[in-house]
């Protein structure tokens, strides 16, 4: 799996309440989450997400298990999330909804060109290549299928 996009740099400990607030959870309309994603962090961020790669610090996606957080990012057009470390439920959720997550420690500048190759296990920021922590075989399989739902259907 490969991809590319301009970087949006975020800090450490971005919690899922900041990604999508509790007041927007009670709906099945995914466009609501994409519209309000990161509203409490930076209301201008949502409009910049399409086609971008989020590059966060440590403990990305900590807090609530709400899957709406990763769905919001995917629906807003985020290509992938790179972070030095992830909260584990956010990480599993991202894989399950088909949003590539890459654990790597990189130097980020806003709008830098990010490229990644999950199969070869690297991520590049402005041409500088960093190693990515390998995913388990199952996680790669789920991501490659586009998420748990298509993975399940392909296995049955």
């Amino acid at each position, binding site marked *: 799996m490969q991809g590319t996009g301009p970087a949006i740099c975020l800090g450490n*400990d971005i919690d899922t309440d900041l990604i999508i607030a509790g007041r927007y959870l*009670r709906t099945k309309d995914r466009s609501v989450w994409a519209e309000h994603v990161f509203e409490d962090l930076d209301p201008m961020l949502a409009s910049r997400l399409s086609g971008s790669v989020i590059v966060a610090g440590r403990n990305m996606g*900590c807090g609530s298990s709400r899957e709406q957080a990763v769905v919001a990012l995917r629906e807003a057009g985020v290509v992938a999330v790179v972070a030095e470390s992830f909260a584990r439920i956010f990480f599993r959720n991202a894989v*399950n909804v088909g949003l590539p997550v890459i654990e790597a420690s990189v130097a980020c500048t806003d709008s830098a060109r990010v490229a990644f190759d999950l199969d070869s296990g690297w991520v590049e920021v402005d041409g500088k290549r960093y190693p990515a922590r390998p995913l388990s075989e199952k996680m790669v399989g789920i991501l490659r299928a586009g998420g748990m739902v298509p993975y399940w259907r392909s296995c049955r």
Partner: protein
Amino acid sequence: MSTLSEAFLGAPAGEYVDREVDIAFAHDGTGVLAREALREMGVERLPHPDRLRLVFDHIVPANTGTTATLQAELREYAGVSGIALSDAGGGICHQVMSEGVVRPGMIVVGADSHTCTLGAFGAFATGVGATDMAAIWASGETWFRVPETIAVNLEGRLSGASEPKDVALAYVADLGMEGATYRALEFVGDGAAGISMDGRLTLSNMAVETGAKTGMFYADPVTVRYLADHGVAASPQVPEDSHYERTVAIDLADIVPLVAVPHRVDTVCEAEEVAGTHLDQVFVGTCTNGRYEDLARFARIVRGKKVAVRTLVFPASRSVLSRAIATGVLADIVDAGCVVGSPGCGPCLGAHAGVLGEGEVCLSTANRNFKNRMGVGGEIYLSSVATAAASAITGVITVPEVV
């Protein structure tokens, strides 16, 4: 020797395993998305409905027509699929599961991050997302990476007005919000035996605030007695001399009332340092501190007095509420001028029933004080029940006295 995680998952730390789960539950929030995922997956029949639970706790009773409709659809699905449903008023999922459902040695997954609470029984209990839960309901199993383990070694006994919540804030401050990411916590040491089941549930509850998968105690005579009271037979687990990645040592006698200040759970100070901070609301409840012992402790402090600030008390479950009625604890709370809400999560996640206004300050017994969590522009301080009670009486953050 193996850690509890290694023993229950059957492999050494670092390995990936597929394991059948004993209990898998979701709530009214995550359940809706799990149901959607099952529909998209084309799953019609669930292989083990007896192992599954749905618990309505996050927004109960429903706050809007949309919420009510989503809950009605999920309620109907519970009936069709054979999943036991705890409807509005039954209580918070982790509390309902702690009242005789989860037993030592089980593998438990919940579609809620605070599922680690149930590690207090000597079970491997961890949170997952909604689509993960759908796949678990459909297959009966899931994958885990067997975690490395950090020991939290408890020595001695709590003294003064300190309580298990202060210990929880102490270890979260020590480890930090990412100090145990991908790892498990085990609460060990001679001090563990002196902590009640309600207190252990509080300690295990906050494991996820350090990034941990779960926070486990060994089942001991305290666990066995508690489960017997809930009609469940269980045996103690024999502690092993396990290999821990590191150990956090806590002398319970050194613990003083603590407060986590906005907007991080790991920015913790002594209550003394923030004493006098103006409050607009006090909130007692949640999967951290809404249990009977918590309500009883709160009632002992406010009995015969009047609260000076809007104070909301949400029992964690119907059985907690029922016991508080039977013992007179609830009357003390009501007579002190508190608002009593229906069993459930209450305003913890800022969705209903006690949302903060811009600039309002809340002292809460919950587990998270993230920015805007209880309402845009609101500030959340986290404390023990005793600190919340003392502060409710004065209207400012107040160090509790020994009662």
